[in-house]
Protein backbone atom coordinates (compact mmCIF):
# COMPACT_ATOMS: atom_id res chain seq x y z
CA UNK A 1 0.00 0.00 0.00
CA UNK A 2 2.77 2.45 0.85
CA UNK A 3 4.92 3.69 -1.99
CA UNK A 4 7.39 5.66 0.15
CA UNK A 5 9.79 3.33 1.94
CA UNK A 6 10.72 3.75 5.55
CA UNK A 7 14.18 5.23 5.70
CA UNK A 8 16.32 6.40 8.55
CA UNK A 9 15.63 9.96 7.47
CA UNK A 10 15.72 12.13 10.57
CA UNK A 11 13.40 14.71 9.06
CA UNK A 12 9.87 13.41 8.58
CA UNK A 13 8.45 16.55 7.04
CA UNK A 14 10.07 19.52 5.42
CA UNK A 15 8.38 22.50 3.82
CA UNK A 16 10.65 24.51 1.52
CA UNK A 17 9.56 28.07 0.76
CA UNK A 18 5.94 27.04 0.44
CA UNK A 19 3.41 29.66 -0.66
CA UNK A 20 -0.30 29.44 -1.24
CA UNK A 21 -2.49 32.17 -2.59
CA UNK A 22 -6.23 32.12 -3.15
CA UNK A 23 -6.76 34.74 -5.81
CA UNK A 24 -5.29 37.86 -4.24
CA UNK A 25 -5.09 36.49 -0.72
CA UNK A 26 -1.68 35.25 0.33
CA UNK A 27 -2.66 32.60 2.86
CA UNK A 28 0.81 31.10 3.23
CA UNK A 29 3.85 33.15 2.29
CA UNK A 30 7.31 31.65 1.76
CA UNK A 31 6.92 29.32 4.71
CA UNK A 32 9.67 26.84 5.55
CA UNK A 33 9.93 24.45 8.43
CA UNK A 34 11.00 20.99 9.44
CA UNK A 35 9.60 18.35 11.72
CA UNK A 36 11.97 15.70 13.02
CA UNK A 37 11.11 12.09 13.64
CA UNK A 38 9.37 11.57 16.96
CA UNK A 39 8.81 15.27 17.50
CA UNK A 40 5.73 16.77 19.10
CA UNK A 41 5.41 20.17 17.48
CA UNK A 42 2.78 22.81 17.84
CA UNK A 43 1.80 25.39 15.27
CA UNK A 44 0.24 28.47 16.81
CA UNK A 45 -0.79 31.88 15.54
CA UNK A 46 -3.74 34.26 15.47
CA UNK A 47 -6.87 33.41 13.50
CA UNK A 48 -6.20 33.64 9.78
CA UNK A 49 -2.47 33.16 10.18
CA UNK A 50 -2.55 30.24 7.71
CA UNK A 51 -2.15 27.30 10.07
CA UNK A 52 -5.00 25.21 8.71
CA UNK A 53 -3.94 26.10 5.15
CA UNK A 54 -0.50 24.67 5.93
CA UNK A 55 -2.23 21.46 7.04
CA UNK A 56 -4.25 21.39 3.84
CA UNK A 57 -1.05 21.79 1.82
CA UNK A 58 0.62 18.94 3.72
CA UNK A 59 -2.34 16.57 3.23
CA UNK A 60 -2.70 17.60 -0.41
CA UNK A 61 -6.22 19.00 -0.21
CA UNK A 62 -4.82 22.15 -1.84
CA UNK A 63 -1.93 22.20 -4.29
CA UNK A 64 0.88 24.57 -3.35
CA UNK A 65 1.30 27.74 -5.39
CA UNK A 66 5.05 27.65 -4.94
CA UNK A 67 7.63 25.67 -3.01
CA UNK A 68 8.21 22.04 -2.15
CA UNK A 69 6.95 19.55 0.40
CA UNK A 70 9.36 16.78 1.35
CA UNK A 71 8.08 13.78 3.32
CA UNK A 72 10.55 11.15 4.54
CA UNK A 73 13.07 12.44 2.05
CA UNK A 74 10.73 12.21 -0.92
CA UNK A 75 9.23 15.15 -2.81
CA UNK A 76 5.45 14.76 -2.46
CA UNK A 77 4.53 18.21 -3.81
CA UNK A 78 2.68 16.66 -6.77
CA UNK A 79 1.38 13.57 -5.00
CA UNK A 80 -2.45 13.35 -4.85
CA UNK A 81 -4.05 13.57 -1.41
CA UNK A 82 -5.27 9.97 -1.24
CA UNK A 83 -1.74 8.67 -1.87
CA UNK A 84 -0.29 10.90 0.84
CA UNK A 85 -2.87 9.47 3.20
CA UNK A 86 -1.94 5.93 2.21
CA UNK A 87 1.69 6.78 2.86
CA UNK A 88 1.01 7.59 6.48
CA UNK A 89 0.03 11.25 6.68
CA UNK A 90 -3.14 11.32 8.76
CA UNK A 91 -5.18 14.28 9.88
CA UNK A 92 -7.74 14.94 12.56
CA UNK A 93 -9.77 17.78 11.18
CA UNK A 94 -10.95 20.89 12.97
CA UNK A 95 -14.67 20.25 12.50
CA UNK A 96 -15.34 16.60 13.42
CA UNK A 97 -14.95 14.77 10.12
CA UNK A 98 -17.07 11.76 10.96
CA UNK A 99 -19.81 10.08 8.93
CA UNK A 100 -22.80 11.21 10.93
CA UNK A 101 -25.46 9.00 9.40
CA UNK A 102 -23.44 5.81 9.89
CA UNK A 103 -22.77 3.79 13.01
CA UNK A 104 -19.65 3.99 15.16
CA UNK A 105 -18.21 0.73 13.89
CA UNK A 106 -19.00 1.54 10.26
CA UNK A 107 -17.14 4.83 10.67
CA UNK A 108 -14.10 2.98 11.94
CA UNK A 109 -14.32 0.36 9.22
CA UNK A 110 -14.26 3.06 6.57
CA UNK A 111 -11.23 4.58 8.26
CA UNK A 112 -9.47 1.19 8.49
CA UNK A 113 -10.09 -0.29 5.08
CA UNK A 114 -7.27 1.35 3.17
CA UNK A 115 -4.70 0.47 5.78
CA UNK A 116 -5.26 -3.23 6.28
CA UNK A 117 -3.64 -5.93 4.23
CA UNK A 118 -5.68 -6.57 1.09
CA UNK A 119 -8.29 -9.33 1.44
CA UNK A 120 -8.00 -9.30 5.21
CA UNK A 121 -10.48 -11.43 7.08
CA UNK A 122 -13.63 -9.95 8.51
CA UNK A 123 -12.43 -10.99 11.98
CA UNK A 124 -9.19 -9.01 11.62
CA UNK A 125 -11.17 -5.94 10.66
CA UNK A 126 -13.49 -6.30 13.66
CA UNK A 127 -10.47 -6.77 15.91
CA UNK A 128 -8.79 -3.63 14.56
CA UNK A 129 -12.04 -1.73 15.19
CA UNK A 130 -12.23 -3.07 18.77
CA UNK A 131 -8.67 -1.95 19.48
CA UNK A 132 -9.32 1.55 18.18
CA UNK A 133 -12.48 1.89 20.27
CA UNK A 134 -10.58 0.79 23.35
CA UNK A 135 -7.74 3.22 22.66
CA UNK A 136 -10.05 6.25 22.92
CA UNK A 137 -12.23 4.75 25.65
CA UNK A 138 -15.56 4.50 23.80
CA UNK A 139 -16.24 0.82 24.59
CA UNK A 140 -19.32 1.54 26.65
CA UNK A 141 -21.18 3.17 23.77
CA UNK A 142 -21.99 0.07 21.74
CA UNK A 143 -22.67 0.80 18.08
CA UNK A 144 -24.82 3.96 17.86
CA UNK A 145 -25.41 6.28 14.92
CA UNK A 146 -22.56 8.74 15.17
CA UNK A 147 -24.73 11.81 14.58
CA UNK A 148 -26.33 11.16 17.98
CA UNK A 149 -23.04 11.27 19.88
CA UNK A 150 -21.80 14.27 21.85
CA UNK A 151 -19.22 16.61 20.40
CA UNK A 152 -16.48 15.16 22.58
CA UNK A 153 -17.35 11.58 21.64
CA UNK A 154 -17.28 12.52 17.96
CA UNK A 155 -13.87 14.15 18.45
CA UNK A 156 -12.48 10.99 20.05
CA UNK A 157 -14.04 8.81 17.43
CA UNK A 158 -12.31 10.86 14.79
CA UNK A 159 -9.01 10.54 16.65
CA UNK A 160 -9.50 6.77 16.58
CA UNK A 161 -10.35 6.93 12.87
CA UNK A 162 -7.20 8.93 12.24
CA UNK A 163 -5.12 6.39 14.15
CA UNK A 164 -6.59 3.59 12.03
CA UNK A 165 -4.16 4.71 9.34
CA UNK A 166 -1.23 3.72 11.57
CA UNK A 167 0.25 7.09 10.63
CA UNK A 168 3.88 8.14 10.56
CA UNK A 169 2.93 11.79 10.68
CA UNK A 170 -0.15 12.79 12.62
CA UNK A 171 -1.71 16.22 12.06
CA UNK A 172 -4.13 17.40 14.73
CA UNK A 173 -6.14 20.52 14.01
CA UNK A 174 -7.54 22.06 17.20
CA UNK A 175 -7.98 18.83 19.01
CA UNK A 176 -9.17 20.39 22.26
CA UNK A 177 -11.67 22.80 20.69
CA UNK A 178 -14.99 22.66 22.51
CA UNK A 179 -13.67 20.38 25.25
CA UNK A 180 -14.24 20.82 28.95
CA UNK A 181 -11.25 20.67 31.32
CA UNK A 182 -11.63 16.97 32.04
CA UNK A 183 -11.89 16.06 28.37
CA UNK A 184 -8.89 18.27 27.59
CA UNK A 185 -6.85 16.47 30.23
CA UNK A 186 -7.78 13.09 28.77
CA UNK A 187 -6.88 14.32 25.30
CA UNK A 188 -3.53 15.65 26.49
CA UNK A 189 -2.81 12.26 28.03
CA UNK A 190 -3.72 10.52 24.81
CA UNK A 191 -1.49 12.75 22.71
CA UNK A 192 1.42 12.27 25.13
CA UNK A 193 0.95 8.53 25.01
CA UNK A 194 1.05 8.55 21.19
CA UNK A 195 4.16 10.69 21.31
CA UNK A 196 5.82 8.27 23.71
CA UNK A 197 5.11 5.49 21.25
CA UNK A 198 7.35 7.37 18.82
CA UNK A 199 4.73 8.98 16.62
CA UNK A 200 5.62 12.27 14.96
CA UNK A 201 2.87 14.75 15.74
CA UNK A 202 2.20 18.24 14.45
CA UNK A 203 -0.73 20.06 15.98
CA UNK A 204 -2.57 23.35 15.89
CA UNK A 205 -4.20 24.69 19.00
CA UNK A 206 -5.43 27.86 20.61
CA UNK A 207 -5.72 26.61 24.16
CA UNK A 208 -2.38 27.76 25.59
CA UNK A 209 -2.70 25.61 28.70
CA UNK A 210 -3.14 22.59 26.47
CA UNK A 211 -0.17 23.61 24.34
CA UNK A 212 1.99 24.22 27.38
CA UNK A 213 0.99 20.84 28.75
CA UNK A 214 2.08 18.80 25.76
CA UNK A 215 4.23 20.68 23.25
CA UNK A 216 7.98 20.89 23.33
CA UNK A 217 8.74 22.98 20.30
CA UNK A 218 6.45 25.66 18.91
CA UNK A 219 6.28 27.40 15.56
CA UNK A 220 4.41 30.71 15.46
CA UNK A 221 2.72 31.83 12.24
CA UNK A 222 1.58 35.33 11.45
CA UNK A 223 0.16 36.57 8.12
CA UNK A 224 1.16 33.31 6.44
CA UNK A 225 4.81 33.64 7.44
CA UNK A 226 6.92 31.99 10.09
CA UNK A 227 7.08 34.52 12.90
CA UNK A 228 9.06 32.67 15.54
CA UNK A 229 10.14 29.16 16.44
CA UNK A 230 11.59 27.63 19.55
CA UNK A 231 10.94 25.98 22.90
CA UNK A 232 7.58 26.68 24.45
CA UNK A 233 9.13 28.49 27.42
CA UNK A 234 11.17 30.81 25.16
CA UNK A 235 8.22 31.54 22.89
CA UNK A 236 6.09 32.53 25.85
CA UNK A 237 8.73 35.02 26.93
CA UNK A 238 9.07 36.47 23.42
CA UNK A 239 7.52 39.93 23.54
CA UNK A 240 6.70 40.07 19.83
CA UNK A 241 4.77 36.84 20.08
CA UNK A 242 2.92 38.13 23.11
CA UNK A 243 1.92 41.21 21.17
CA UNK A 244 0.52 39.42 18.15
CA UNK A 245 -0.90 36.39 19.75
CA UNK A 246 -0.95 35.89 23.44
CA UNK A 247 -2.98 39.00 23.89
CA UNK A 248 -0.83 40.69 26.49
CA UNK A 249 0.02 44.32 26.00
CA UNK A 250 3.72 45.04 25.65
CA UNK A 251 5.47 45.31 28.97
CA UNK A 252 2.41 44.24 30.90
CA UNK A 253 2.93 41.48 33.43
CA UNK A 254 -0.54 40.22 34.19
Amino acid at each position, binding site marked *: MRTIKDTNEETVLKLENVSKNFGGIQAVDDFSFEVKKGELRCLIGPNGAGKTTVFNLITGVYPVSEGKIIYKGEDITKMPAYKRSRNGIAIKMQIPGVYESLTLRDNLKIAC*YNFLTPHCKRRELEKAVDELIAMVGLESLGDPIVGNLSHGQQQWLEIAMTLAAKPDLLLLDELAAGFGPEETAFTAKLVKMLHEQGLTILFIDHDMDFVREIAQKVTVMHFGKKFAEGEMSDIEQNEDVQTIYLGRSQGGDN
Partner: protein
Amino acid sequence: MARAIKAENIVAAGFLVFAFTLPLFKGAYSVSMFAHYYIVAILALSMSLVWGYCGVFSFGAAAFYGVGAYAYAILSLSAGETALTPLYMLVAVLISTLLAAVIGYFMFYGGINDVFVALITLCVSLVLETFMAQTAGSQWSIAGVQLGGYNGINGIPTIHFGNQAITGIPFYYFVLFILLAVYIVLRMIKHRKAGYTLIAIRENRARSLLFGYNIEFIQMIVFALGGTVAGMAGVLYTAWGGYITPNSMGLIQATIPVVIVAAGGRKNMTAALVFAVIYAWFTQTLSATGSEYGNIIVGVSLIIAILFVPNGFIVAVFDWIDKFIGWATGKKKG
Protein backbone atom coordinates in the same frame (compact mmCIF):
# COMPACT_ATOMS: atom_id res chain seq x y z
CA MET B 1 -24.94 -13.36 17.49
CA ALA B 2 -27.88 -14.60 15.49
CA ARG B 3 -29.04 -12.11 12.93
CA ALA B 4 -32.64 -11.03 13.17
CA ILE B 5 -34.89 -11.84 10.26
CA LYS B 6 -35.16 -8.63 8.33
CA ALA B 7 -38.23 -7.48 6.47
CA GLU B 8 -35.99 -6.72 3.51
CA ASN B 9 -34.94 -10.35 3.25
CA ILE B 10 -38.51 -11.59 3.63
CA VAL B 11 -39.64 -9.30 0.82
CA ALA B 12 -36.69 -10.31 -1.35
CA ALA B 13 -37.46 -14.00 -0.80
CA GLY B 14 -41.15 -13.37 -1.49
CA PHE B 15 -40.29 -11.60 -4.71
CA LEU B 16 -38.05 -14.48 -5.72
CA VAL B 17 -40.81 -17.05 -5.22
CA PHE B 18 -43.33 -14.84 -7.00
CA ALA B 19 -41.01 -14.15 -9.94
CA PHE B 20 -40.01 -17.78 -10.46
CA THR B 21 -43.55 -19.15 -10.32
CA LEU B 22 -45.30 -16.33 -12.20
CA PRO B 23 -45.40 -18.16 -15.58
CA LEU B 24 -47.25 -21.01 -13.84
CA PHE B 25 -50.32 -18.96 -12.99
CA LYS B 26 -50.24 -16.09 -15.46
CA GLY B 27 -50.86 -15.99 -19.19
CA ALA B 28 -48.37 -15.19 -21.92
CA TYR B 29 -49.32 -11.50 -22.01
CA SER B 30 -48.72 -10.97 -18.29
CA VAL B 31 -45.46 -12.87 -18.41
CA SER B 32 -44.27 -10.68 -21.25
CA MET B 33 -45.33 -7.53 -19.44
CA PHE B 34 -43.53 -8.61 -16.28
CA ALA B 35 -40.36 -9.07 -18.33
CA HIS B 36 -40.77 -5.40 -19.20
CA TYR B 37 -41.26 -4.44 -15.56
CA TYR B 38 -38.03 -6.23 -14.66
CA ILE B 39 -36.25 -4.19 -17.34
CA VAL B 40 -37.49 -1.03 -15.59
CA ALA B 41 -36.18 -2.54 -12.35
CA ILE B 42 -32.74 -3.11 -13.89
CA LEU B 43 -32.69 0.55 -14.91
CA ALA B 44 -33.69 1.51 -11.35
CA LEU B 45 -30.83 -0.63 -9.95
CA SER B 46 -28.40 1.33 -12.11
CA MET B 47 -29.73 4.49 -10.49
CA SER B 48 -29.59 2.92 -7.05
CA LEU B 49 -25.93 2.02 -7.55
CA VAL B 50 -24.80 5.40 -8.85
CA TRP B 51 -26.97 7.67 -6.73
CA GLY B 52 -28.13 5.55 -3.79
CA TYR B 53 -24.80 3.91 -3.01
CA CYS B 54 -22.21 6.35 -4.32
CA GLY B 55 -24.15 9.61 -4.00
CA VAL B 56 -23.69 10.70 -7.61
CA PHE B 57 -27.02 12.25 -8.57
CA SER B 58 -27.23 11.60 -12.29
CA PHE B 59 -29.84 11.61 -15.04
CA GLY B 60 -27.43 9.71 -17.25
CA ALA B 61 -29.15 6.32 -16.99
CA ALA B 62 -31.50 7.31 -19.84
CA ALA B 63 -28.59 8.24 -22.11
CA PHE B 64 -26.79 4.95 -21.52
CA TYR B 65 -30.06 3.02 -21.80
CA GLY B 66 -30.72 4.67 -25.16
CA VAL B 67 -27.17 4.22 -26.44
CA GLY B 68 -27.23 0.54 -25.48
CA ALA B 69 -30.59 0.12 -27.17
CA TYR B 70 -29.60 1.87 -30.41
CA ALA B 71 -26.24 0.09 -30.50
CA TYR B 72 -27.94 -3.29 -30.22
CA ALA B 73 -30.54 -2.31 -32.84
CA ILE B 74 -27.97 -1.17 -35.37
CA LEU B 75 -25.65 -4.12 -34.79
CA SER B 76 -28.33 -6.79 -35.02
CA LEU B 77 -30.06 -5.25 -38.07
CA SER B 78 -26.94 -4.44 -40.08
CA ALA B 79 -25.29 -7.82 -39.66
CA GLY B 80 -28.54 -9.75 -39.82
CA GLU B 81 -26.91 -12.74 -38.16
CA THR B 82 -29.33 -13.63 -35.38
CA ALA B 83 -27.06 -16.33 -33.94
CA LEU B 84 -24.66 -13.57 -32.97
CA THR B 85 -27.21 -11.51 -31.02
CA PRO B 86 -25.66 -12.40 -27.61
CA LEU B 87 -22.41 -10.96 -28.93
CA TYR B 88 -24.18 -7.79 -30.14
CA MET B 89 -25.71 -7.52 -26.74
CA LEU B 90 -22.30 -7.59 -25.09
CA VAL B 91 -20.86 -5.08 -27.57
CA ALA B 92 -23.80 -2.72 -27.06
CA VAL B 93 -23.40 -2.91 -23.29
CA LEU B 94 -19.68 -2.28 -23.69
CA ILE B 95 -20.40 0.82 -25.80
CA SER B 96 -22.67 2.33 -23.15
CA THR B 97 -20.10 1.45 -20.48
CA LEU B 98 -17.35 3.21 -22.41
CA LEU B 99 -19.53 6.26 -23.04
CA ALA B 100 -20.29 6.45 -19.31
CA ALA B 101 -16.60 6.03 -18.47
CA VAL B 102 -15.59 8.86 -20.81
CA ILE B 103 -18.29 11.24 -19.53
CA GLY B 104 -17.47 10.22 -15.96
CA TYR B 105 -13.77 10.79 -16.54
CA PHE B 106 -14.26 14.36 -17.71
CA MET B 107 -16.78 15.17 -15.00
CA PHE B 108 -15.07 13.71 -11.96
CA TYR B 109 -11.47 14.46 -12.87
CA GLY B 110 -12.68 17.93 -13.83
CA GLY B 111 -13.88 18.38 -10.26
CA ILE B 112 -17.60 18.43 -11.13
CA ASN B 113 -19.97 17.11 -8.48
CA ASP B 114 -23.44 17.18 -7.03
CA VAL B 115 -26.06 19.21 -8.87
CA PHE B 116 -23.73 19.94 -11.78
CA VAL B 117 -23.46 16.23 -12.52
CA ALA B 118 -27.25 16.15 -12.65
CA LEU B 119 -27.32 19.07 -15.09
CA ILE B 120 -24.64 17.67 -17.36
CA THR B 121 -26.10 14.17 -17.50
CA LEU B 122 -29.60 15.53 -18.12
CA CYS B 123 -28.20 17.57 -21.01
CA VAL B 124 -26.42 14.51 -22.42
CA SER B 125 -29.69 12.57 -22.41
CA LEU B 126 -31.69 15.40 -23.98
CA VAL B 127 -29.05 16.16 -26.61
CA LEU B 128 -29.00 12.50 -27.63
CA GLU B 129 -32.79 12.45 -27.80
CA THR B 130 -32.94 15.64 -29.87
CA PHE B 131 -30.24 14.38 -32.17
CA MET B 132 -31.88 11.01 -32.77
CA ALA B 133 -35.26 12.68 -33.28
CA GLN B 134 -33.98 14.60 -36.31
CA THR B 135 -32.55 11.57 -38.09
CA ALA B 136 -35.67 10.97 -40.20
CA GLY B 137 -33.98 11.63 -43.55
CA SER B 138 -32.60 8.81 -45.66
CA GLN B 139 -29.09 10.23 -45.27
CA TRP B 140 -29.17 9.17 -41.60
CA SER B 141 -28.19 5.55 -41.72
CA ILE B 142 -25.47 3.59 -40.01
CA ALA B 143 -24.24 0.42 -41.77
CA GLY B 144 -27.42 0.39 -43.81
CA VAL B 145 -29.78 0.78 -40.86
CA GLN B 146 -32.10 3.80 -41.11
CA LEU B 147 -32.22 5.65 -37.81
CA GLY B 148 -35.77 6.74 -38.52
CA GLY B 149 -35.96 10.02 -36.61
CA TYR B 150 -38.83 10.22 -34.17
CA ASN B 151 -40.27 6.89 -35.28
CA GLY B 152 -37.06 5.14 -34.33
CA ILE B 153 -36.01 1.72 -35.50
CA ASN B 154 -38.43 -1.20 -35.87
CA GLY B 155 -38.20 -4.91 -36.48
CA ILE B 156 -35.20 -5.49 -34.27
CA PRO B 157 -34.61 -9.21 -33.63
CA THR B 158 -34.73 -10.55 -30.09
CA ILE B 159 -31.84 -12.38 -28.50
CA HIS B 160 -31.10 -15.80 -29.99
CA PHE B 161 -29.25 -18.74 -28.54
CA GLY B 162 -28.07 -20.53 -31.65
CA ASN B 163 -31.08 -20.58 -33.94
CA GLN B 164 -33.51 -20.40 -31.07
CA ALA B 165 -35.18 -17.01 -30.63
CA ILE B 166 -35.63 -16.16 -26.97
CA THR B 167 -39.20 -14.96 -26.54
CA GLY B 168 -42.09 -15.51 -24.17
CA ILE B 169 -41.30 -17.50 -21.05
CA PRO B 170 -37.61 -18.11 -21.83
CA PHE B 171 -37.16 -14.37 -22.40
CA TYR B 172 -38.93 -13.71 -19.10
CA TYR B 173 -36.48 -15.96 -17.26
CA PHE B 174 -33.55 -14.48 -19.17
CA VAL B 175 -34.47 -10.96 -17.98
CA LEU B 176 -35.18 -12.24 -14.48
CA PHE B 177 -31.78 -13.91 -14.39
CA ILE B 178 -30.01 -10.68 -15.35
CA LEU B 179 -32.06 -8.67 -12.86
CA LEU B 180 -31.20 -11.06 -10.04
CA ALA B 181 -27.54 -11.19 -11.06
CA VAL B 182 -27.27 -7.40 -10.89
CA TYR B 183 -29.23 -7.31 -7.64
CA ILE B 184 -27.18 -10.02 -5.94
CA VAL B 185 -23.85 -8.52 -6.96
CA LEU B 186 -24.90 -5.09 -5.69
CA ARG B 187 -26.16 -6.52 -2.41
CA MET B 188 -23.04 -8.61 -1.96
CA ILE B 189 -20.69 -5.63 -2.17
CA LYS B 190 -22.63 -3.75 0.48
CA HIS B 191 -20.83 -5.29 3.44
CA ARG B 192 -17.47 -5.50 1.75
CA LYS B 193 -14.76 -2.99 1.14
CA ALA B 194 -16.33 -1.88 -2.13
CA GLY B 195 -19.61 -1.11 -0.41
CA TYR B 196 -17.97 0.83 2.39
CA THR B 197 -15.95 2.74 -0.18
CA LEU B 198 -19.08 3.88 -2.03
CA ILE B 199 -20.88 4.80 1.18
CA ALA B 200 -17.85 6.73 2.42
CA ILE B 201 -17.84 8.75 -0.80
CA ARG B 202 -21.59 9.34 -0.59
CA GLU B 203 -21.46 10.53 3.00
CA ASN B 204 -18.38 12.77 2.96
CA ARG B 205 -16.07 13.12 -0.03
CA ALA B 206 -13.61 15.56 1.56
CA ARG B 207 -13.03 13.35 4.59
CA SER B 208 -12.85 10.10 2.62
CA LEU B 209 -10.07 11.55 0.49
CA LEU B 210 -7.97 11.88 3.63
CA PHE B 211 -8.66 8.27 4.60
CA GLY B 212 -6.92 7.26 1.40
CA TYR B 213 -9.88 6.83 -0.95
CA ASN B 214 -9.20 7.73 -4.58
CA ILE B 215 -12.48 9.59 -4.99
CA GLU B 216 -12.42 10.63 -8.66
CA PHE B 217 -11.36 7.21 -9.85
CA ILE B 218 -14.01 5.37 -7.83
CA GLN B 219 -16.72 7.80 -8.94
CA MET B 220 -15.73 7.24 -12.56
CA ILE B 221 -15.76 3.45 -12.18
CA VAL B 222 -19.16 3.47 -10.48
CA PHE B 223 -20.57 5.80 -13.10
CA ALA B 224 -19.26 3.47 -15.81
CA LEU B 225 -20.81 0.45 -14.08
CA GLY B 226 -24.07 2.38 -13.88
CA GLY B 227 -23.70 2.77 -17.65
CA THR B 228 -23.22 -0.99 -17.96
CA VAL B 229 -26.40 -1.78 -16.06
CA ALA B 230 -28.47 0.92 -17.78
CA GLY B 231 -27.13 -0.16 -21.19
CA MET B 232 -28.12 -3.73 -20.37
CA ALA B 233 -31.65 -2.55 -19.61
CA GLY B 234 -31.73 -0.69 -22.94
CA VAL B 235 -30.61 -3.76 -24.88
CA LEU B 236 -33.16 -5.96 -23.16
CA TYR B 237 -35.93 -3.45 -23.84
CA THR B 238 -35.04 -3.36 -27.52
CA ALA B 239 -34.93 -7.13 -27.70
CA TRP B 240 -38.23 -7.32 -25.81
CA GLY B 241 -40.23 -4.87 -27.93
CA GLY B 242 -38.35 -5.10 -31.20
CA TYR B 243 -38.26 -1.32 -31.54
CA ILE B 244 -36.51 1.72 -30.11
CA THR B 245 -37.34 5.41 -30.37
CA PRO B 246 -35.60 8.61 -29.20
CA ASN B 247 -38.19 8.74 -26.41
CA SER B 248 -36.02 6.21 -24.61
CA MET B 249 -33.60 9.06 -23.89
CA GLY B 250 -36.16 11.78 -23.25
CA LEU B 251 -37.03 13.78 -20.19
CA ILE B 252 -39.53 11.27 -18.80
CA GLN B 253 -37.24 8.34 -19.30
CA ALA B 254 -34.43 10.31 -17.61
CA THR B 255 -36.50 11.24 -14.58
CA ILE B 256 -38.50 8.06 -14.00
CA PRO B 257 -35.57 6.05 -12.56
CA VAL B 258 -34.70 8.98 -10.28
CA VAL B 259 -38.29 9.17 -9.07
CA ILE B 260 -38.60 5.41 -8.58
CA VAL B 261 -35.39 5.22 -6.57
CA ALA B 262 -36.20 8.34 -4.52
CA ALA B 263 -39.75 7.25 -3.73
CA GLY B 264 -38.90 3.60 -3.10
CA GLY B 265 -35.79 4.18 -1.01
CA ARG B 266 -32.55 5.21 -2.58
CA LYS B 267 -30.15 3.63 -0.11
CA ASN B 268 -31.73 0.21 -0.42
CA MET B 269 -31.43 -2.04 -3.50
CA THR B 270 -34.40 -4.22 -2.61
CA ALA B 271 -36.61 -1.17 -2.18
CA ALA B 272 -35.57 0.19 -5.57
CA LEU B 273 -36.24 -3.17 -7.23
CA VAL B 274 -39.62 -3.75 -5.63
CA PHE B 275 -40.83 -0.20 -6.17
CA ALA B 276 -39.72 -0.27 -9.81
CA VAL B 277 -41.76 -3.42 -10.47
CA ILE B 278 -44.79 -2.00 -8.64
CA TYR B 279 -44.50 1.31 -10.47
CA ALA B 280 -44.13 -0.33 -13.88
CA TRP B 281 -47.03 -2.68 -13.23
CA PHE B 282 -49.20 0.16 -11.99
CA THR B 283 -48.57 2.53 -14.90
CA GLN B 284 -49.06 -0.30 -17.36
CA THR B 285 -52.36 -1.27 -15.76
CA LEU B 286 -53.49 2.35 -15.82
CA SER B 287 -52.49 3.00 -19.41
CA ALA B 288 -54.11 -0.26 -20.50
CA THR B 289 -57.40 1.15 -19.27
CA GLY B 290 -56.87 4.11 -21.54
CA SER B 291 -55.62 6.80 -19.21
CA GLU B 292 -52.21 8.42 -18.96
CA TYR B 293 -52.30 9.02 -15.23
CA GLY B 294 -49.21 6.93 -14.54
CA ASN B 295 -46.73 9.81 -14.50
CA ILE B 296 -49.01 11.98 -12.41
CA ILE B 297 -49.28 9.24 -9.82
CA VAL B 298 -45.54 8.81 -9.77
CA GLY B 299 -45.11 12.56 -9.33
CA VAL B 300 -47.58 12.66 -6.47
CA SER B 301 -45.98 9.65 -4.81
CA LEU B 302 -42.61 11.38 -5.01
CA ILE B 303 -43.99 14.48 -3.29
CA ILE B 304 -45.58 12.35 -0.59
CA ALA B 305 -42.36 10.43 -0.13
CA ILE B 306 -40.29 13.60 0.21
CA LEU B 307 -42.74 15.10 2.69
CA PHE B 308 -43.51 12.10 4.87
CA VAL B 309 -41.08 9.25 4.29
CA PRO B 310 -37.82 10.80 3.07
CA ASN B 311 -36.08 7.43 3.19
CA GLY B 312 -38.63 6.01 0.74
CA PHE B 313 -41.94 4.14 0.89
CA ILE B 314 -40.57 0.65 0.69
CA VAL B 315 -37.86 1.34 3.24
CA ALA B 316 -40.53 2.74 5.56
CA VAL B 317 -42.56 -0.45 5.10
CA PHE B 318 -39.44 -2.53 5.86
CA ASP B 319 -38.92 -0.52 9.05
CA TRP B 320 -42.51 -1.03 10.15
CA ILE B 321 -42.34 -4.75 9.56
CA ASP B 322 -39.01 -4.93 11.40
CA LYS B 323 -40.53 -3.09 14.34
CA PHE B 324 -43.52 -5.38 14.33
CA ILE B 325 -41.32 -8.49 14.25
CA GLY B 326 -39.24 -7.04 17.08
CA TRP B 327 -42.36 -6.32 19.06
CA ALA B 328 -43.93 -9.74 18.40
CA THR B 329 -40.79 -11.74 19.21
CA GLY B 330 -40.04 -9.58 22.24
CA LYS B 331 -43.54 -10.26 23.52
CA LYS B 332 -43.15 -13.97 23.09
CA LYS B 333 -39.90 -13.98 25.07
CA GLY B 334 -41.34 -11.77 27.77
